[in-house]
């Protein structure tokens, strides 16, 4: 690995570490992070392939409330180094390795987020002085720690000898590697399940099944699905009585008056 590659790689790792906590630019999402590592190491194709597969697995990893999800940055960056770097681990093995890496990253993240509690108290003291500049410094420092949380492990992985990595991977029995590679196709379902679990309610379930059945039409691509989905949403919102309360009274006013007419007619008889 050339010095330039290494520097670019470490910058990417650092930014992914910062952004996985910020959750703003989404540089740490596997599809972006793995592609960037692939670019740094001159194997874009492998990076994109790994990133896309990991992206589907990580769909449901989100920062909600105080729960810390498996760490997308550690998983993407380190497994992309193994796949796109001189060790040339296969994409399938890279996917299997990404999961334990995500958990290792999650643990480190718990440490850092606990450390920042201490920094938060330092910030209180700074606030008491009314010193905005020091508050900035604290904030930047916290982000640097988050960046190093990924950049340091990334560097450590690059200094392990290629032979050691390959020997370690080759020593795993075939049953395990094949089984993990099969499971790689399964675990996408966990990501889907997490997202569905969050959105699902009685109103929206039917749309899931419409999508499921239409998936059988192979010529319908995702852009087509996007257009259909937006149309379904708009039609539902237009027709749903829940959002048409202003129209409903007008109708109900109309109905009794018609009945009144009939009543009057009946009275005449």
């Amino acid at each position, binding site marked *: 690995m050339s010095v330039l590659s290494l520097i670019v790689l470490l910058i990417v790792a650092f930014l992914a570490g910062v952004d996985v*906590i*910020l959750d*703003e630019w*989404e540089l740490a*999402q596997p*599809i*972006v992070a793995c592609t960037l590592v692939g670019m740094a190491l001159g194997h874009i194709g492998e990076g*994109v392939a790994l990133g*896309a597969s990991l*992206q589907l697995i990580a769909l*449901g990893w*989100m*920062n*909600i*409330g105080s729960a810390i*999800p*498996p760490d997308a940055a550690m998983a993407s960056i380190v497994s992309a180094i193994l796949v796109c770097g001189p060790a040339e681990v296969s994409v399938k093995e890279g996917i299997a390795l990404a999961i334990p890496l995500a958990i290792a990253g999650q643990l480190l993240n718990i440490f850092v*987020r606990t450390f*920042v509690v201490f*920094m*938060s108290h330092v910030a209180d003291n700074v606030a008491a002085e*009314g010193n*905005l500049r020091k*508050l900035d410094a*604290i*904030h*930047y420092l*916290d*982000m640097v720690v988050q960046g190093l949380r990924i950049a340091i492990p990334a560097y450590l992985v690059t200094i392990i000898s290629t032979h050691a990595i390959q020997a370690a991977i080759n020593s795993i029995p075939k049953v395990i590697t094949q*089984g993990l590679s099969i*499971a790689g*196709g*399964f*675990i*996408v*379902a*966990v990501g*889907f*399940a*997490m997202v*569905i*679990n969050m*959105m*699902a*309610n009685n109103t*929206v379930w039917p*749309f899931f099944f*419409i*999508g*499921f059945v*239409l*998936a059988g039409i192979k010529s319908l691509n*995702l852009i087509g699905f996007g257009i*259909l*989905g937006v149309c*379904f*949403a708009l039609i*539902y*919102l237009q027709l*749903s009585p829940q959002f048409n309360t202003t129209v409903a009274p007008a109708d109900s006013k109309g109905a009794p008056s018609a009945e009144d007419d009939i009543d009057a007619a009946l009275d005449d008889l």
Partner: protein
Amino acid sequence: MSEQEQTNKPNDGQLQLTRHDLTASFWRSGFLQGSWNYERVQNIGFCFQMEPTIKRLYGGDKKETAKAMKRHLTFMQTTPVMSSLIGGVMMAMEQQRANGEDVEDTMIQSLKVAMMGPLAGVGDPIYWATIRPVLGAFAASLALSGMGVVGPLVFFVVWNAIRLASRWYFQKLGYEQGLNVMHDLSGNLLQKFTLGASILGMFILGALVPRWTKVNMPLVISKVTANGHTTVTTLQDIFDQLMPGLAPLLLTFFCIWLLRKKVNAVWIIFILFALGIVGYMFHIFG
């Protein structure tokens, strides 16, 4: 700049945030979660976002600056994008307070607390559970179907366009409307948007589950030889005849069921790893 300075101190010395302050807050808001911590979550980041406001309104006064910093270092937790709306309202409130209007410090704080929960309630499902996964899955399938770098590029550009536009619009809305924003929010608009986004998301997920979950079961169930032709029926064939994509669907429901039983997602992944290995050993999966 001079133009802004003029509009800055027009009538009777009223303090007003400049366009520069609004832009600075907008950029700073993108660092909201940098100091995420277990105790007060996004507190430092929110104060960081409020800095241009604090500087403009209480700049020369250390005591007032300290008080303002303390107000904005309290517990803060919402969907990151929504911090722009809260920030906008806070900017309007702080401006009123600095101009001597009757705005109590406790009111600013309680308003922040009142806003962050409900806004996370709409923000999380829209941004985290719908836009990002749908876009991510879309980009991933572009990349996997041979489009390569287009996938990540589409993801990065579209996501950030949505995010930056949302942040800019929310901050503007909050600053201009101030407290009235709560009235706007209680209307149907956000509910409609959330429901519409979930319909789109569920529909797309319905399509993604059978397309991207790979379950292959080459286990041979029967082997019939008739007229010299051998017909092999595998477990996969049976599933496919029942309904294409049935196995991925059942697998997904199994995962949802486990999630509802409060099984950690990472454990579910390990359960599936075990299933893959055991299934391969007994030649059920391939």
